[in-house]
C-alpha cells in the first residue's frame, strides 16, 4: 500500500483499526521485557541504583529529537506534496514530542539530584533539551491559536522546518557557550563503554518507547480525523440551520 493511498482518511482509519491492536500488544510486550531487564540489570559501581533512571531517561531523550524529525517529514508532506494526512500527523506528534521531552528533563534532573547534588545545572545538554521543550510548546501554542486546521497546518509546517534547521545551530551554540563558561566540567561524564548487561535492556526500552510513540501517534491521528469530521458536520449543520 503506497503512501498516497493513505491520503484517503477512510482507508487510513481502516488500516489503523487493523494495526493498532497488534501495536498495543507489541508495546506492552516490549515494556514487559525491557522493564524486567532493567530491573534485573546490575547496579552501577559508582551510581548505584540511580543508574536505572537511564532506562527511562535515554529513550525519552532520543524520542524528543526523533519526534521533531517525524514532524519535519510531515511538514514536508504538507508543504511539498499536500498530503492530506501530513498535517494531522504533525499536529498529533507535537504534544507527544513535548511529553517525551518533559519526561527526559524530569528524569534527568531526578538523576542529577543525587549525582550532581542539584536538580538543575546549566549543562549544555540540559539547556538545549530545555530549548527544544520551549520550541515544542511554542509550536503547540501555534496549532491551538489558528482555528482553521488547514491554515494552522501550513503555518506550523513552516515553523517546524525552520526549527529543524535551527535546532542543530542552537545545540552547537549552547555547547560552545557551555565550554566557554565551565571548561572541564565534572558533569561531562561520557561513559565510553557501557557493559552489555546494561546496554541490552536499554535497547529494549528504547524500542518499547518508540513503539509507544507509534501506537499513541496512530491513535491520536485517528482521533484527530474523527474530530475534524465532527467539526465539518457541525459546520454544515450550522450552515443549514
Amino acid at each position, binding site marked *: 500500500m503506497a503512501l498516497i493511498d493513505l491520503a484517503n482518511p477512510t482507508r487510513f482509519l481502516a488500516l489503523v483499526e487493523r494495526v493498532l491492536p497488534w501495536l498495543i500488544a507489541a508495546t506492552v510486550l516490549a515494556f514487559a521485557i525491557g522493564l524486567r531487564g532493567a530491573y534485573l540489570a546490575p547496579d552501577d559501581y559508582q551510581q548505584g541504583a540511580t543508574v536505572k533512571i537511564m532506562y527511562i531517561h535515554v529513550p525519552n531523550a532520543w524520542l524528543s529529537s526523533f519526534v521533531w524529525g517525524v514532524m519535519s517529514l510531515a511538514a514536508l508532506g504538507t*508543504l511539498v506534496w499536500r498530503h492530506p494526512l501530513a498535517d494531522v500527523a504533525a499536529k498529533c506528534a507535537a504534544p507527544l514530542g513535548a511529553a517525551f521531552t518533559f519526561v527526559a528533563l524530569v528524569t534527568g534532573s531526578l538523576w542529577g539530584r543525587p549525582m550532581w547534588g542539584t536538580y538543575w545545572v546549566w549543562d549544555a545538554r540540559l539547556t538545549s533539551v530545555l530549548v527544544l521543550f520551549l520550541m515544542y510548546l511554542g509550536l503547540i501554542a501555534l496549532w491551538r491559536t489558528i482555528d482553521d486546521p488547514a491554515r494552522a497546518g501550513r*503555518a506550523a509546517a513552516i515553523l517546524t522546518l525552520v526549527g529543524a534547521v535551527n535546532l542543530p545551530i542552537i545545540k552547537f551554540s549552547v555547547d560552545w557557550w557551555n565550554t566557554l563558561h565551565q571548561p572541564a566540567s565534572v558533569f561531562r561524564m561520557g561513559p565510553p563503554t557501557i557493559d552489555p548487561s546494561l546496554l541490552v535492556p536499554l535497547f529494549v526500552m528504547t524500542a518499547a518507547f518508540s513503539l509507544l510513540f507509534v501506537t499513541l501517534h496512530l491513535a491520536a491521528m485517528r482521533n484527530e480525523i474523527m474530530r475534524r469530521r465532527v467539526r465539518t458536520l457541525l459546520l454544515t449543520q450550522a450552515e443549514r440551520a
Partner: protein
Amino acid sequence: MTALANLFARDARIAIRIGGGAMIGVLFFLTVVTLVPFAIGPDLALLRRIGPAILWLGALLASLLTLDRLFASDHDDGSLDLILMGRVPLEIAVVTKALAHWVTTGLPLVIASPVLGLFLNLEPAALGATALTLLVGTPALTLIGVIGAALAVALRRGGLLLPVMVLPMTIPVLIFGVAATNAAVGGPVPFATPFAILCALTLMSAVIGPFAAAATLRHGME
C-alpha cells in the same frame, strides 16, 4: 527597483510617524537598562561585568516590540495583497520590509547603546565592542523575527505567541553577541572567533528568514 525603494520609504515613514516610531524602541531599551540596577543593586563592578549581557537582552526585547505588526498591519489595510500580487518577488519585498524595520528599530538601538553602556559603567573597549556586535547582530534578530511576523498574520489573537516562537531561535545570536563583546575586553577566546560566527549567523538568517516568511505569507493567504 523603484517599487522596492517606495516600499522601503513607506515602511520607514509609517514606523517613524506612528506610535513614536524609532524613539519608542530606544525608550524601551533605556527603561529596561534603568530597571536593572534597581533589581541587582548599584554595584558598579557587577554592572560592568554583566553590562554587555544587559544591553544585548534589552536590544533583543526591544527588537520584538513592533515586530507583530510588521505584516499584520499591511494585511489589515490590504497592502499585503498588493505586495503579494506585485511583480517584485515576495522574498525581496520581505527583505526590504525587514531592512526598513531594522533601520527604524535596530539601528537606533545600536546608536543608543554606547550612551546606555556609560550608565552601566562599561569601559571604552566594551562600549565599542557592544555597538559593533549589536550592529552585526541586530539584523539577524530582525531577519529571524520576520518569520514570526509572517506567522502573526494568520494569528487573530497572537499576543505573546510571537516572542515565544521567535526568542528560542535567537539564542545563538545572543550567545555569540555577548561572547564576542566579552572577548573584546579580555576573555579566553580571541574576539574574531565569536564575532565571525555572529556574522555567519546573520548571513544565515538572511537566507532562511525571508524565504520562510515569504512561504508563510503565501500559504497564509490561500
